[in-house]
């Protein structure tokens, strides 16, 4: 049976092979597509919307940390910037949704290029420090500039365009956003550029010896990650219909880090698994105790200690071990 499956996989090429390869993802996609038709729960739809958006946010972090080895301590900068610039343009300037998207994308590109050129040239740790410093700066601005941002009380009234209402429409919109981000992500990490990024993560100096301009590749990655995080922040703001300085704080960066590490750094499915584990857990735990962050910290430490590769690679290792054991038992019989 197993042998037949291997033969079948080997014979398939092109689109059927790709569909077969991502069969579980496709099944999941079908389930997500029919989900709003079978449940009336707005709470669960909202939770899934959050999972879809944070999956993209985690993909952006995974591209940097998991695939290229760039540590950012202020990734919330892009997330919050997308939320604040997009939200304020919508509420204060009455800009249309379709115009806001290119504006925040351009800001994300400019910000990533400037930070990248200023910091990555020297040492990787500067990037981590500078992103954290700028994120903190904007977090303070968001808190103190109360006339514009509402300060710590936040700002409401950020309503998605009519086309994306009611909630079910927004659910499908964010599902498409996640699927498109995933298609791009898979294509990108499997491209020759993806291999170069992996090489940079493994040994930056050696990659330079091969004639690659490492700085340019790193900037490409942080621009892509910056765009993804910015759009995630904007769509999250639209989903919550609310802006708050917490979008820019260190907890938001830690969310991305947690999802990447728990799901599995440098893996395709890791960001989704990470978001599926972290977001619902956050919701569930926060209803029982106000010390949920502490429990999260303990879970994080346990995963780092016992599943250091993250859930996906560790479960894959276990499955491979079981498969091998099964084959041995079958061959004995």
């Amino acid at each position: 049976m197993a042998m037949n499956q291997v033969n079948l996989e080997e014979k398939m090429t092109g689109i059927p092979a790709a569909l077969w390869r991502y069969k579980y993802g496709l099944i999941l996609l079908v389930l997500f597509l029919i989900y709003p038709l079978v449940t009336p729960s707005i709470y669960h739809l909202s939770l899934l919307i959050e999972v879809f958006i944070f999956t993209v946010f985690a993909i952006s972090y995974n591209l940097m940390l998991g695939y290229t080895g760039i540590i950012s301590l202020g990734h919330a900068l892009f997330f919050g910037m997308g939320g604040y610039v997009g939200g304020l343009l919508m509420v204060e300037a009455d800009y249309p949704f379709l115009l806001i998207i290119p504006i925040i994308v351009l800001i994300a590109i400019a910000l990533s290029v400037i930070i990248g050129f200023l910091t990555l040239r020297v040492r990787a740790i500067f990037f981590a420090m500078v992103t954290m410093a700028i994120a903190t700066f904007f977090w303070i601005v968001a808190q103190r500039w109360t006339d514009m941002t509402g300060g710590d009380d936040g700002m409401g009234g950020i309503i998605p365009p009519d086309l994306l209402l009611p909630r079910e429409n927004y659910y499908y919109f964010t599902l498409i956003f996640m699927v498109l981000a995933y298609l791009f992500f898979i294509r990108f990490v499997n491209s020759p550029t993806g291999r170069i990024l992996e090489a940079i993560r493994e040994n930056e100096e050696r990659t330079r010896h091969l004639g690659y301009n490492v700085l340019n590749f790193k900037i490409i990655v942080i621009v892509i990650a910056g765009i993804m995080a910015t759009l995630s922040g904007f769509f999250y703001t639209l989903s919550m219909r609310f802006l708050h300085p917490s979008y820019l704080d260190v907890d938001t960066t830690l969310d991305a880090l947690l999802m990447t590490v728990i799901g599995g750094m440098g893996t395709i499915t890791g960001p989704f698994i990470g978001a599926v584990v972290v977001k619902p857990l956050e919701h569930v735990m926060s209803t029982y105790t106000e010390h949920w962050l502490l429990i999260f910290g303990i879970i994080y430490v346990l995963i780092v200690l016992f599943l250091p590769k993250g859930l996906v690679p560790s479960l894959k290792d276990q499955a491979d071990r079981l498969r091998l054991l099964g084959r041995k038992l079958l061959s004995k019989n």
Partner: protein
Amino acid sequence: MKNLLELENVHTYIGQYHILQGISMEVPEGAVTVILGRNGAGKTTTLETILGIKPPSKGTVRFKGEDIHKLSLHNIVKKGIGYVPEDKRLFGTLTVEENLRLAERNKQDFHRERRELIWDLFPDLKRAWKRPASTLSGGQQQMLSIARAMINDNSIMLIDEPSMGLAPKLVQEVMSAVEQMKGLTTVLMVEQNLKVAESVADRCYILDNGMIVYSGDIKELVKDEELQNNYLGVTV
């Protein structure tokens, strides 16, 4: 024979230490030139200075008649300089094939001819083609490291102590690969083992405390026991 690479009065510092103290060197096209010397003499620093990893503070590095000492590492490599570092520095999670594809500058040109040449020279790599580099033995990793520099049409290969840490049989295999490179490219090799160097070199330099103390035919050096004792601490 025309010189492919020339170093003229090159000084290099690492921090406050004056490592290369005005060395001048000529590497003729098509030949194998070896740099010999004790530990800490400045051999690896010479290769790293040529590549721009440790740029010279003074002096000129000229490749094919063009000054390259002010260029950045990736631009120097693109001029056609292959590098096989002492510690191999492979990409462990990538397969043998992916390591070679990554090294190739012209992505459209992962041509059969080069690949087959590599397979001929290192049959082990053909067998391990789809295996991650981290699973290779030390000798196989050295072969992959050399193969990676050979995948491009480099005009010169800088090879840093290829025999280090290898069993004698593997050293022979690696040297026979260097020997076969002679017809294809120019080689500048750093080596501590005079016997190994003698088997492939046409010309040699001895570095001592960052200065060149001998340059000439390696056969002359092999005959000169006093020179070997003074600067290499060994005799063949």
